[in-house]
């Protein structure tokens, strides 16, 4: 399944670079929501998530247009998105941000939930945002996007063993939010 999706992407890339613009549109349809989510749960701002998502696709197209090759589109676009988020935080460190941004990101860590009950989206979002950034991105990729350890390892540039350790840490952190 994973392999056939990759082949499909490669064909779409070739078609796009040969002038079939709709092929790139199809790639956007396939990945835009996933990339948006990935960015959104990292920056937790809709406007910024939208901006960085469109930038990710634009950068990818520019890379293709320059004649460079992309063998694994999924891996590539996640990596571009990840780097854009890193750049975004770096640039934020340098400039003074409006107060509204800082306030919005304060997460209430005192959320205690019962894992047996069905949690609301808002609760889940709060729990996710309470996780540390490096742990959070792996939880997103593993439990929201259903990517394999191997795929995650390639995106976050870590070994599969490392990824497993981080998932274990996520479980440990989440224990603090569970009702005894």
């Amino acid at each position: 399944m994973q392999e056939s999706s990759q082949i499909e992407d490669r064909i779409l890339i070739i078609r796009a670079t040969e002038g079939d613009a709709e092929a790139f549109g199809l790639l956007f349809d396939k990945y835009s929501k996933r990339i948006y989510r990935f960015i959104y749960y990292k920056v937790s701002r809709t406007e910024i998530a939208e901006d960085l998502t469109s930038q990710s696709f634009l950068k990818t197209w520019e890379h293709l247009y320059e004649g460079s090759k992309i063998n694994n589109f999924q891996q590539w676009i996640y990596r571009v998105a990840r780097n854009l988020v890193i750049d975004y935080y770096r640039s934020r460190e340098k400039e003074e941000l409006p107060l509204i941004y800082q306030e919005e990101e304060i997460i209430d860590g005192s959320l205690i939930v019962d894992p047996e009950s069905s949690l609301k989206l808002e609760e889940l979002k709060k729990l996710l945002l309470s996780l540390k950034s490096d742990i959070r991105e792996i939880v997103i990729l593993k439990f929201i996007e259903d990517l394999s350890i191997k795929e995650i390892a390639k995106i976050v540039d870590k070994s599969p063993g490392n990824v497993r350790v981080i998932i274990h840490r996520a479980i440990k952190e989440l224990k603090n939010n569970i009702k005894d």
Partner: protein
Amino acid sequence: MPERLLKQFKKLDQTGPSAEWQEGVRDFLVKRVSQNTITKKASWQSSLEIFSIVWVRKLLPSPVKMITALIILTLVGGTGLMAQASYIPSGAFYTAKRFGENVQLVFAITPQSETKINLKFAEERKKEAVKLAKKEDIKPEEKKEYINTVVKSLKQNISAAQTSLDIVKEREKENQNSDTIKLTKELTENVSQNIDDLEEVKAIVSIKEVKAVVTQVQNELEKVEDDSLKDLIKEVEKKEKQDNSEVKVELVQAEATSTESELLPEENIDGYQAEVAVEASGNETTEAFADPSADQVKKTKEGVTETVTREEVQQILAKKITRANKKIQEVGKIAEAFDLVETIKDADEEIADYDVVKEVSNVVDNPAQVQEALTQAITLFDNGNLAKALDKVIEIKEITTKSEAIISRIEEIKESQEAVDKNNKDNNQQKASTSTSEVLPESQTGKVKGVVEVVDVDLKKESSTSTSETTPKIIPLKESVKKKVQEPVKAENLK
């Protein structure tokens, strides 16, 4: 427990951007891709790439399918279907063929084998060029593009062969063995044949640009041919020198033996003769005894036969002389060009500033020089002085190349001048016809036309006499040169 919590995170996949935003960005991206690739057409390479991706996907899970496909491919290749369609550079078979050639080059470990393979490929490129030139169901632009590609590849193959041969020479600098000489001979013969065969391409194709590219490649190949021929001549002369010195040593030894025998006392002579009688049991042994170095000389001579002989070198050189002889007619155009430039210069003072006027004045003596050099080359060739004969041929080549460059520039000027003249003439004729038809009766207009015709004829006569006086004729080649050329020189070229 937290595992269950983690599983609930899946619900968050409902989060997404607004449909409006998604649509907007999609439109923007599609437009951007369209703008960037507006002039791009889907190439066969990308179709092939897509096809191969799908194909590999289908085949990979089954090794049986893969093997079957390979067998089918081999069979198809074997039946020659590939060979038939493999001379068109844009074809898939051609790409496969070139890929195969590159693989062969990768496996050529030694520079010797690399040289041989490159020569083989150069031969192949030449055949492709001839086939493409003969192919009729092809657009002129495509023909031009394909022949240019193939001919340039030929040049690359020859350059690669020369480079690998240089490596061989470098490695065996101390002792240039028969392998190096054999390869040099192979290279020279291959290049010489390719130069001649490319003439066929020029004769078939009427496209000016193709002719120019082929000529350029021929010139490059001639340089390679000159270098390797020089090496061969050196080798022949070296071997002949060796042989001569061995014969001299032998003669000196024989002389010394005879004087020694004259000085020997009688009984010693008897003893010596008896010794000779014992050893000389047959004619052959007697000869061997009388000429101790004969075997060695014979062996050396055989060695030369294996690598390169004077006859072989002469044959290649004779081809070069024939080629130079044909070029003489071209150089003759310099005289015409000179006449033309003089006429234009007189008519239009502005053209006097052109560099070309100066250049033509400098090279006006070229035809005479070339004729003289060719006569000298043939004389040197007849006298067996191959090295100097080759130098003369190279000299001729240099002069002809320079002359050809100027001639082509002059021809361009001539063409533009002719176009201007034609325009003027048409305009004048139009004016004249309107004015005469208005003013003169029919009989009188005929008279005017007659005068113009007489003037035209006179001018033509004048120009034909002036060119016949200055244009050099092709020198009829001597029998000695003709004999050495494998293919006899065509009669019309020698007249």
